[in-house]
């Protein structure tokens, strides 16, 4: 169960819609099961009442949708933003990717979102029903007589497990109380990899990246990836490819994808959430964030609108590329 209930969000959406403040609402639409909620645009009270859901599976970040949806849209759109989503929201505003005037942002508290594959690891296949009670969920399956009780904290998405901030950095209105920026252990995994030998690291990434299907979901969901035409989709770029023909192309795609959002990535974790092959893509992005923090000072993309990203900035005292392997002591 989330701190804020579905009813509160539904009432808020309907009242704003009926008052004429907004003309459309971004929300989560119920699916076939309790966990397969779909991001959707609602425009009528009836639709919201019948189909709007909010539960522990509403991980989708709406920020990126605003880029396409606010263009040519007459009026305001209501969007519900969890704390992590607000960072992406700000980052997109920094990059002038959508018109702030067309958006009515409501910040909502979040207790973390669950990962259905982790739920299934515990409860087994055939999940037919999930009921939330406090911070527990009761999972009914086809194969067990009694529902399996699971603590939300045990099945969180990786990004929620290492939540960086419960603080909302952008909103027009906030439901509930604001949280704090948290001390997370999100760089632990990166540090663990860094401590390995190059051979081990190579084997690790070779194994992970070779799973890649090149479905581009990581790129397409990424709120920082908002190029009109991606270099990997452009037949004139010379590097366009639809399938990774070999291990080089796998690496190139993932290095360039992560590099292109370096300094702009808010670590929202959508890339890893959507990957159909469970590649820990956030570990690439976090490596850049960790390096940036270490070499150029702490920087959180999206914390403030208008902040200058580290890669479009410099100081005359920056660490030399040949010194980065020493861990950048000079700047630490």
């Amino acid at each position, binding site marked *: 169960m989330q701190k804020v209930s579905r009813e509160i969000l539904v009432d808020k959406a309907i009242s704003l819609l009926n008052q004429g403040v907004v003309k459309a609402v971004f929300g989560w639409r119920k699916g076939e099961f309790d966990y397969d909620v779909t991001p959707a645009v609602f425009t009528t009270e009836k639709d919201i009442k019948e189909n709007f859901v909010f539960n522990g599976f509403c991980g989708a970040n709406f920020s990126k949708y605003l880029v396409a949806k606010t263009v040519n849209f007459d009026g305001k759109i209501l969007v519900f933003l969890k704390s992590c989503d607000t960072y992406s929201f700000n980052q997109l505003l920094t990059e002038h990717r959508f018109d702030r005037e067309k958006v009515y942002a409501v910040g909502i508290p979040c207790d973390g979102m669950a990962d259905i594959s982790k739920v299934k690891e515990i409860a087994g296949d055939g999940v037919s029903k999930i009921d939330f009670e406090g911070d527990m969920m009761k999972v009914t399956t086809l194969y067990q007589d009694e529902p399996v009780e699971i603590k939300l904290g045990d099945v969180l998405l990786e990004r929620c497990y290492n939540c960086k901030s419960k603080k909302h950095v952008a909103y027009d209105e906030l439901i509930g109380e604001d949280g704090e920026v948290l001390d997370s252990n999100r760089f632990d995994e990166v540090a663990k990899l860094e401590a390995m030998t190059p051979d081990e690291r190579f084997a690790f990434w070779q194994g992970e990246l070779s799973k890649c299907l090149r479905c581009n979901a990581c790129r397409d969901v990424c709120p920082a990836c908002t190029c009109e035409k991606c270099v990997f989709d452009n037949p004139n770029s010379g*590097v366009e490819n639809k399938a990774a023909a070999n291990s080089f192309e796998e690496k*190139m795609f993932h290095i360039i994808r992560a590099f292109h959002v370096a300094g702009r990535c808010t670590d929202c974790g959508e890339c890893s959430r959507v990957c159909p092959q469970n590649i820990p893509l956030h570990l690439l992005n976090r490596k850049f964030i960790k390096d940036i923090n270490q070499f150029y000072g702490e920087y959180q993309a999206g914390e403030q609108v208008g902040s200058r990203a580290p890669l479009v900035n410099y100081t005359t005292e920056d660490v030399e590329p040949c010194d980065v392997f020493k861990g950048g002591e000079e700047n630490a």
Partner: protein
Amino acid sequence: MQVEEYKPLIVAFCCNWCSYAGADLAGNNRLNYPADVKIIRVPCSCRVNPMFILRAFQRGADGVILCGCHPGDCHYTSGNYYTRRRMALLFSMLDYLGIERERTRVEWVSAAEGAKFAATMNDFAQKVASLGKNKRLEDLRCKK
């Protein structure tokens, strides 16, 4: 059959204003550096996009070196400062993926530093040669 001595293929991106002139000076002074260093002239070291580095490896380079003006001397005032940040992050990422860190380098070479250019290339080629062929960032389709 005699086994051919392994010579690494090195791609050197050189900025038009300093390093390329530095390479020129090295030539004028008849300084030796390996013939396997292929120089690609770029308007500024900042022109080099991470994709260039990766593509050089794909197309068969065993080592990639990027040469630009000394920090503070950029013809365009600040291009090489951006390069410095970009390459610091890129090289760190390549290392993170397990690519040998000696295969990439950034060196600042001014137009007056012909000797430094030659020495850098000699040193770099030697280091890369000791690593052997680039296996971790190779594209088999590009092999003969």
